[in-house]
């Protein structure tokens, strides 16, 4: 039943002039699953997520959301369909408060003296604090600057924001790339929580150790092509590691080094 898939890319290619960024990629995201997208630098991960996010239109092939073909002209349109992308820069402003960041661009409003529209700061502060607390992050007050938060907390803030604004699909671009072990764990927990709420997640990473515990399925990209999609039950962590560009290379390097040492 095609309807089981919330997002589908069917034989999608994307060209930038003479460069083939994606060639015939097929990706299917089931409802409520965490789908991990693995690939080395230059594999086409960024182009793929930007296509999903509505930044790029596919050069050929079809993009379907909930079974219907879509042609997004801007990220805004994708967002309106519930497809939210959290990029590595997180779209947060460090000098602004948590609440102001949380609601940036979608400020809650009330009428002052019944006429002047102002930001409902009380609602913004309370909601931001509450939503972050649900994700296990406790902020002193929502008026503190985002610059005072750790990298992991910022990542969680960006994800919590996307969920609050009705994301059905979360696309996370290397959310654990710049984080320490403990903070990465928090973000992984958050991904798990999102899944429990029935949100589908596309999780891009280099790190199999981060991908394997939370993912339900894996798609491997290499030089713009999909090397296939695998359910977690069908594949071991070692096999995933091996499949990734780098897995065999690293093994070769290890062999070579050991051989030289011996």
């Amino acid at each position, binding site marked *: 039943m095609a309807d089981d898939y919330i997002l589908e890319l069917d034989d999608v290619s994307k060209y930038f002039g003479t460069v083939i960024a994606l060639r015939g990629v097929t990706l299917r995201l089931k409802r409520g699953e965490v789908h991990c997208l693995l690939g080395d630098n230059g594999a086409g991960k960024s182009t793929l997520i930007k296509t999903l996010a509505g930044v790029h239109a596919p050069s050929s092939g079809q993009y379907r959301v909930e079974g219907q073909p879509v042609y997004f002209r801007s990220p805004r349109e994708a967002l309106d369909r519930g497809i939210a992308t959290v990029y590595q*820069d997180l779209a947060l402003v460090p*000098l*602004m408060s948590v609440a*102001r960041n949380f609601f*940036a661009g979608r400020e809650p409003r009330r009428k002052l003296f019944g006429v002047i529209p102002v*930001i409902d700061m009380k609602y913004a502060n309370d909601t931001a604090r509450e939503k972050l607390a649900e994700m296990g992050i406790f902020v002193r007050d929502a008026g503190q*600057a985002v610059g005072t938060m750790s990298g992991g907390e910022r990542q969680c803030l960006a994800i919590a924001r996307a969920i609050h604004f009705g994301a059905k699909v979360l696309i996370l671009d290397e959310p654990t790339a710049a984080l320490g072990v403990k903070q990465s764990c928090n973000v992984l927990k958050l991904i798990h929580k999102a899944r429990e709420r029935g949100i589908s997640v596309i999780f891009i990473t280099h790190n199999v150790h981060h991908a394997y515990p939370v993912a339900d399925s894996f798609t491997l990209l290499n030089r713009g092509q999909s090397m296939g999609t695998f359910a977690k039950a069908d594949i071991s962590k070692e096999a995933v590691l091996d499949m990734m560009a780098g897995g065999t290379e690293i093994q070769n390097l290890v062999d070579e080094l050991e051989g030289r040492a011996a």
Partner: protein
Amino acid sequence: MSAIHQSVSHMIQRQQADERVRKISPWRVLLDRPELGSIAGTVLVFAFFGFFAGDSGMFALDGIINWAKVAGYLGILAVGACLLMIAGEFDLSMGSMIGFAGVAVAIPPMYFGWPLWAAVLFAFAACMALGALNGYLVVRTRLPSFIVTLAFMFILRGLTLVLSTTFANSTIVSGVGDKFTEAPFVQALFSGTTLHGLFVFLAGHGIVDRFPNGQPVVDGIPKVLLWWAAIALVCGFTLARTRFGNWIYTVGGDANAAKNVGVPVRRVKISLFVLTAFCACLFGVLQVAEFGSAASDRGLQKEFEAIIAVVIGGTLLTGGFGSVIGACFGAVIFGVVQIGISYTNIDSDWYRVFLGGMLLIAVLFNHYIRSRASSGK
């Protein structure tokens, strides 16, 4: 029973919540406000001139009106420049726009027989259109606003000179003052003072000093101060409380992030360039009303003075942080120093040295605040 259980679990949760939260002193909270530096600076210059010029009449009512007027004129510019700077851009054409607005008001009634109100409307429309053009060029080309508005600084100053010499055969278009007396509505908006009756009343009760002829030494509150207050209130409120204000901070803090969360970055920037143009035009019109003439060198270097006032007010040159109140205090510092120095025995040539020094201290202070705010120490 369950209520107790609930409250205990709530308490545990609260404790968990507070585990990583430390108390911060009210002093630190205050230090995080952008306008702190300028308030401290204001206190400092008041103390300084209170000491050196306390009995010179500088802080008598007429003295206050003197420096408040300087602060008011600059304050109008500073408020506009402040919002634009928070959004991450500059407008160096503000000073030239003042001169341009002056001739745009003066020439049509003097040489084309336009009614004054039409000329004033024309000046505002022309300036704001030029502001929009400034903004459009900046957001379209993505060139630094420094360069684009620098070009307009020269273009407008030159154009003002050309228009003035072409029509008036002089660098000053004079005689507009009479047109103001013939146009009571425009006059009521831009010239002279208000609340004259109140000051007569106060003088009658000996609260305000009187001239020998019985008139109070101060005629009333100059219109420029009312305009300043109105603009500062509207802009300050917009910045702090409204959705558009949040967009200004977001755009200046990180334009790319702003775009990604759906803030119309271009629209925000262009409207703020229109605002600075409006402020410059208002400055120009008020000056024409005050002096009865439009001089083509009017507003020279005002763009820099406005930027200095804004920076002293705690706004970051790189955008994303600042306040309108701070910019207003920056303008007050300017007015007090510029006028106050002539009340002291200090050679008034020191005025610029003093301002440059203030600017340097303010920038260093802001830099410190910002690195603290973004690192969370």
